[in-house]
């Protein structure tokens, strides 16, 4: 089972769009059973596939809707409130993924309040309470049996949530805008990659697939920074040989009633779809 995570502690570099593109490619185009996990308290990734709700009692943000399988009259569900998010792993409860409109794609959505609580766990407890939990969950027999690939969208942070994703991942991709601040975010992620790589066992490497130039504009700034990274002998080989351009179509398909709703529903010769295919098929 492959666990692909998109990371960058700088926000707004397109982690969610990349996660979405990858998840939809694997499930929709490759027809592989895929689980999308939203590890970002902002829950944007979840919102692509579910009508996330605002909790009146929790000002922090979104929570998942009632699960379609939930039956309040079922005695088996008596200790369940009907909602399930990936953050249940921090509370010792089972995660019930939601089906999405794509047949092969399930979603373990985020839960703003609970994820923020996990991110705020004290330093002494963090290893047991947060860092190990995602790995444990993904190693469970149920998850392994049900899914071929896991795609994880992460929070723009270097905190416990991101560390737990790094610990669970087999592959990481760092999307970045070709500007100074997001490139600093790459550095933050490479540090986490380094720390994790040095403690991992040889037969379970953490593969850095690469740095993905994202939201690319044909400006001197973007072109020059990309070139300077490519020309560096150490970094150059990790710059992915494709780039996703800044296109309004990626934002358009995000809206609730968008049609088409997935980049892979466009015609074959659509320029954005071609770029996306170039990236995901690597």
């Amino acid at each position, binding site marked *: 089972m492959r666990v692909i995570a998109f990371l960058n502690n700088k926000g707004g570099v397109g982690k969610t769009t990349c996660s979405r593109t990858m998840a939809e490619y694997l499930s929709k185009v490759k027809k592989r059973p895929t689980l999308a996990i939203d590890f970002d308290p902002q829950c944007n990734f979840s919102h692509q596939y579910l009508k996330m709700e605002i909790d009146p009692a929790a000002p922090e943000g979104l929570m998942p809707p009632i699960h379609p399988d939930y039956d309040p009259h079922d005695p088996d569900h008596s200790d369940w409130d009907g909602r399930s998010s990936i953050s249940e792993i921090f509370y010792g409860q089972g995660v019930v993924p939601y089906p999405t409109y794509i047949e092969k794609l399930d979603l373990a959505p985020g839960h703003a309040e609970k994820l923020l609580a996990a991110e705020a766990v004290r330093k002494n407890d963090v290893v047991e309470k947060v860092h190990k939990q995602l790995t444990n969950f993904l190693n469970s027999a149920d998850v392994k049996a049900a899914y071929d690939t896991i795609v994880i969208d992460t929070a723009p942070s270097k905190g416990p949530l991101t560390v737990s994703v790094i610990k669970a991942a087999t592959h990481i991709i760092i999307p970045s805008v070709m500007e100074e601040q997001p490139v600093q975010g790459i550095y933050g992620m*490479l540090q986490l990659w380094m720390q994790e*790589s*040095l403690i991992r*066992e040889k037969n379970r490497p953490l593969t850095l697939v690469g740095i993905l130039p994202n939201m690319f504009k044909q400006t001197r700034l973007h072109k020059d920074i990309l070139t300077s990274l490519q020309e*560096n002998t*150490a*970094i150059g080989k990790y710059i992915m040989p494709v780039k996703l351009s800044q296109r309004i179509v990626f934002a358009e398909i995000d809206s609730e009633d968008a049609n088409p709703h997935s980049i892979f529903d466009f015609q074959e010769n659509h320029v954005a779809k071609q770029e996306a295919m170039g990236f995901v098929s690597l």
Partner: protein
Amino acid sequence: MSKKKRFGVSQALSRGLSETINVVENNAGIYRNVVLPLSRIELDPDNPRKLAITLTDVQQGLDKIDPLYTRKSEEHERLTELAMTIKSSGVINPIVVYKLGEAYRVVAGERRCLASIIAGKQEIEARVFNEKPQGFALKLVQWIENTAREDLTLDERINNIRDLLREYQHQHGEVAVTPTLLKNVTGLSLPQATYYGAVLNAQPDVRQMIESGKIRSLDKAAIITGIDLPELRYEALSACVNGCSLKELRKIVARGKQNIRKHIIPNGTAKRGRAVSRVNMGFTLHPGVIQVIVESVLSRAEYKKYADKFLKVDWAHIGQATQMFKKLIEILEHEGEIA
């Protein structure tokens, strides 16, 4: 007109990125840094450093009936000193271990482990090799670890090298142990490697002194090993044990060499170097000696005719005496030919 600006990531950031990537590429999967419970750690019985004190001694206290009690209590005292620093500032360098069944065996860091137990610690930071290091690599790590230590005896150091070489030969086949090979294997300097090379083959009497700790200096041991004559070696050994300096030791060796020349090479046997074809007349500090020689020769009947050639000589003058001696040799050779 100014040049068009070229953008790029800052130098510091670009350096940071490449350094991080290099660390991962060069180190990932070789070992892991983890915190291990001390209860899972066991010492390597084959570690070339011979600590008398054992894990059990540290855990349960020393037994006065133990024949090694004195040595062990000295070691315990030193470990307690280390334990004090561990209490105050922790173990600074992680120990090196590899997994052996349920336990972790120490490659480097025995003293740190024992001292941590004395300090009342439950865990210790360790660098875990993912695979058991192969013989040579294991010995090399132990050697590197041990050379960095100052309290290692000469005997322990020599044994380290011997183990290291055995493992090297095990891996590379039987190769002759030259100083250059030793230098390459251990990273020692050539002179040091030469000394170790000599001491590795020390005579039994020298070895015994090293083992008993009476000789602690590598240079002295190497010099004494170079003496072939047993009596002279004995003299050097005694001098060394009595604390003579390196210079004094070298004098003994030099004396031995003179004796060897006098005693061992008999006249007429083949010598090294070019064949001797002429007689060396030697030298003297006293020109009077030449006067005696010259007058003695001239006193013989057949040489009296040359007496006038030696009339106005100042025999106290070295230069004149030398000239006269040369002249005498010429005359003698001339007369010899005639004869």
